[in-house]
């Protein structure tokens, strides 16, 4: 009995101390929410991004934090479950009182978070290339819009390689479908005939590519130079490339340019048969720039693995995080309305040796790079745009979005302003 009493006393004291210290601690920190899946299907890609933010937070704290306060990362796991993203985001903002959230990978998870972020008027950074057709007051898109990845890639194939026939292959969901719609309209505007475009969709995680590869082979043997533009989602790419290799389709016959295959995806693969196939991104680990070397060194020592790779969405987080820090310092507060105002026009160095800026449409400027897969799982950059490309929220090649622009500065303050009817259509995204 005595023992029990003294035990409970100690327990009480301990909990008091803990409570005190945590509340004292909380007053001095700025909370940064991390909303990336750590389990389920998307864990493969998103875990890395969580670690990236943790590294950036640690680094910023070593530099003295933001506005004299230390940063504290709050990590939650939405478990690749789309509705759970909205729930966890609400928890982060209402319960944990975070000032900013970095998160999401798939478009559907972003769409699920969007109403919550807008309702609670927070700030959200989205780091992955996506299909565009969206511009929210509260979301900052640091990944590529279609005009920062898909269109320049097609230009490269058309002008530098002389491709005349196109296979648009994708996984069956919103990003490939919208991107392919934009690409088809773009190709037709360049005079490509309907019969020279083949569009093909496959389910998530498709693993039996025999028929499709054989179709591509037939399509490519009609006398015109052919290329595959692939919006196939991460995982399904590996059996796809394996089948290409086995059926003897080499990059010099029919090159495949991918928008979702990066260093990380290739690290699970024997890249021998893929050598020469292409990918379009805004960043490659092999970029020759001082910032990049520094970033890679930090990353490998943070993660404790010499062989860990870096990739494009990591760079997007790097840019987004630094922009947020700069905006907070400019505004003198991390209050979300102030950040939303201050961040437009903020510039920070990107990892390819240039300087990226936040545009009024909440997208950023980036270079577009084309890389060829090498036998060591890295990309060699074979082409890049001469300058930076500003992200376009509303594609110029889709009938519904041609006339829309987005400008979140006063006086327009609208994410989808129609220049013909001079009206902001009223919806928020």
């Amino acid at each position: 009995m005595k023992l029990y009493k003294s035990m409970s006393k100690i327990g009480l004291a301990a909990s008091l101390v803990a409570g005190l210290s945590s509340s004292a601690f909380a007053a001095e920190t700025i909370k940064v929410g991390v909303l990336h899946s750590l389990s389920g299907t998307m864990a493969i890609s998103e875990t890395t991004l969580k670690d990236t933010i943790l590294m950036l937070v640690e680094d910023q704290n070593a530099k003295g934090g933001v506005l004299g306060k230390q940063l504290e990362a709050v990590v939650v796991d939405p478990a690749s479950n789309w509705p759970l993203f909205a729930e966890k985001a609400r928890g982060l903002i209402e319960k944990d009182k975070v000032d900013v959230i970095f998160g999401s990978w798939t478009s559907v998870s972003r769409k699920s978070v969007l109403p919550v972020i807008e309702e609670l008027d927070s700030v959200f950074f989205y780091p992955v290339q996506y299909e565009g057709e969206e511009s929210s007051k509260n979301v900052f898109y640091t990944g590529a819009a279609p005009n920062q990845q898909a269109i320049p890639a097609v230009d490269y194939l058309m002008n530098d390689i002389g491709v005349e026939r196109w296979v648009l292959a994708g996984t069956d969901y919103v990003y490939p479908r919208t991107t392919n719609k934009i690409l088809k309209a773009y190709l037709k505007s360049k005079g490509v005939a309907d019969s020279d475009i083949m569009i093909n969709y496959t389910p998530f995680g498709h693993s039996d590519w025999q028929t499709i590869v054989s179709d591509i082979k037939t399509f490519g043997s009609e006398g015109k130079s052919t290329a595959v533009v692939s919006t196939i989602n991460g995982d399904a790419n590996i059996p796809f490339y394996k089948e290409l290799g086995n059926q003897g389709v080499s990059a010099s016959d029919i090159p495949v340019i991918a928008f979702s295959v990066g260093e990380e995806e290739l690290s699970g693969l024997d890249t021998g048969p893929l050598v020469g196939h292409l990918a379009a991104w805004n960043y490659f680990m092999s970029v020759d720039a001082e910032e990049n070397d520094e970033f890679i060194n930090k990353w490998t020592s943070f993660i404790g693995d010499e062989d860990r790779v870096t990739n494009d969405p990591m760079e997007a987080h790097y840019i987004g995080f630094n922009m947020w820090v700069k905006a907070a310092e400019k505004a003198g507060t991390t209050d979300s309305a102030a950040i939303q105002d201050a961040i437009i026009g903020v510039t920070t160095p990107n990892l390819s040796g240039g300087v990226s800026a936040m545009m009024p449409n909440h997208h950023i400027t980036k270079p577009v790079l084309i890389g060829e897969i090498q036998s060591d799982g890295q990309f060699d950059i074979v082409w890049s745009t001469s300058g930076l490309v500003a992200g376009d929220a509303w594609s110029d090649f889709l009938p519904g979005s041609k006339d829309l622009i987005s400008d979140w500065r006063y006086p327009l303050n609208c994410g989808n302003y129609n220049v013909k009817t001079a009206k902001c259509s009223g919806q928020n995204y």
Partner: protein
Amino acid sequence: MLIIISGLHFPLQASANLETFEDTLNQLSAKKLPIKLKIIEQIIKSKNPRTEFILSSILDGRVFYIKGKNSVLFANKENNKYITKSLLNDEPLGIFTKRQLKKVSINNKIRKKIKQALAVLYLRHTDESVRLKAVKDTYNSINKSIIDEIELLIKTEKSEDIIDAMHIAINIYLLEDSSSINRIKAIENLEGSLDTKVKILLTKLKDTDIDKNVRIAAEQALLSIKSRTEIFNKLEVVFFGVSFGSVLILAAIGLAITFGVMGVINMAHGELIMLGAYTTYVVQLVMPSYIELSVLVAIPMAFIVSGSVGILIQRGVIRHLHGRPLETLLATFGVSLVLQQAVRTVFTPLNRAVQTPDWMSGALEINGILSLTWNRLYIIMFCLIVFAALVLVLKKTSLGLQVRAVSQDRNMARAMGVRSNWVDAMTFGLGSGVAGIAGVALSQLTNVGPNLGQSYIIDSFMVVVFGGVGNIWGTLISGFSLGIINKFLEPWAGAVLAKVLILVFIILFIQKRPRGLFPQKGRSAGG
């Protein structure tokens, strides 16, 4: 006197050449790709005896330069160290680390150039298959000098296949002849060929040739080629179907035992497949220098690993839920999540790279249209072997006899002295072990990651239910037929719709025949 002078002169010139050649090589450390392309062209023209070695090394990514200096050398990676030697004379140049060297990188344009140059060099290779490939590679870049070389070599060539390929090359060259009679003749000669390149050239000719007669001849040749390719295309689809079917059977056959024979709905079946795939990965980690054998070693290992995990699941969970199918379903679903997350913790959520042994990569080329990929061929054979072995176990061993006895009438079997608990555990272990073996095969086809199992569990249940629960012959027939139906639907319905159609078909079929293709007969069939 003159002879002596010229004799003296030659070695001097040769050494001068050698020096400049080394300088040329060192310029490969340039960053700009157009410069590299020029250097490669110079190397090809140089006719240096080392050209073949240098070009193939660049193609393999084995040529590096030392950072900060521009001396180019050959490097071979061994245990994270780079052992280097001279490109010119194999003289060892020391050991370097990754950070000291930079690879001479190339792009597709340069790669193409090198491949064409190597094709010409390999025309005289001693290995027959290399020679054949070289002749076929020249189709893309045929010119007068290559044709001269081929016409010279065709006289001494022994292999029929190579002679045929050489004739095609000569006729391809003739397609661009200035006389339209020669062009028509070449078209007629090429009619029998099913090579893709020939088809491409004829299509071009059909559309663009200035002479109308040539255009007509090309069109006719294309028509006759097309009629012959159709039959091969059909054969190809059947092959795709059979190979897809064998994958389905491999994934489902373990389930046919646990679900079909024992009546246990095991949602963790997919994860047992996944464990088998990870076993292959671990085996390759343990024996990195025997990749060729690793898959064979992995088969028994995967059987043991998945089998013992299966027995653990049976003893720990399923045994206690006997006769309660809904609870078994939920509990095993929980087990599947635990296994997935365990793999994520141990191996990270990233996919693991399982290497394909050389004997399983590439394709068996029947002709220009029909080529069967080796990995699929091996998996079809493997599937049939596993199936045969399983039938033998069930029909000819005492374990098989007891399994059948317990599945037909548990109480009677127990009355006859069969330890039904032990038989349950062994049956479940056998089914799980076979799932592990399927994992080894799948590791060669798809991603080895924590989600591997999920993507096969639905398909597996589909195959077992369609084939008839409790009948492993039904599983075999149903796997092959679903595979072939799927592959015939796919070209016109697309991969997504084909899957949907198959599901609808099975639902309708089950309405008509609830017990599947081959319903089980006997006392237990009613209950």
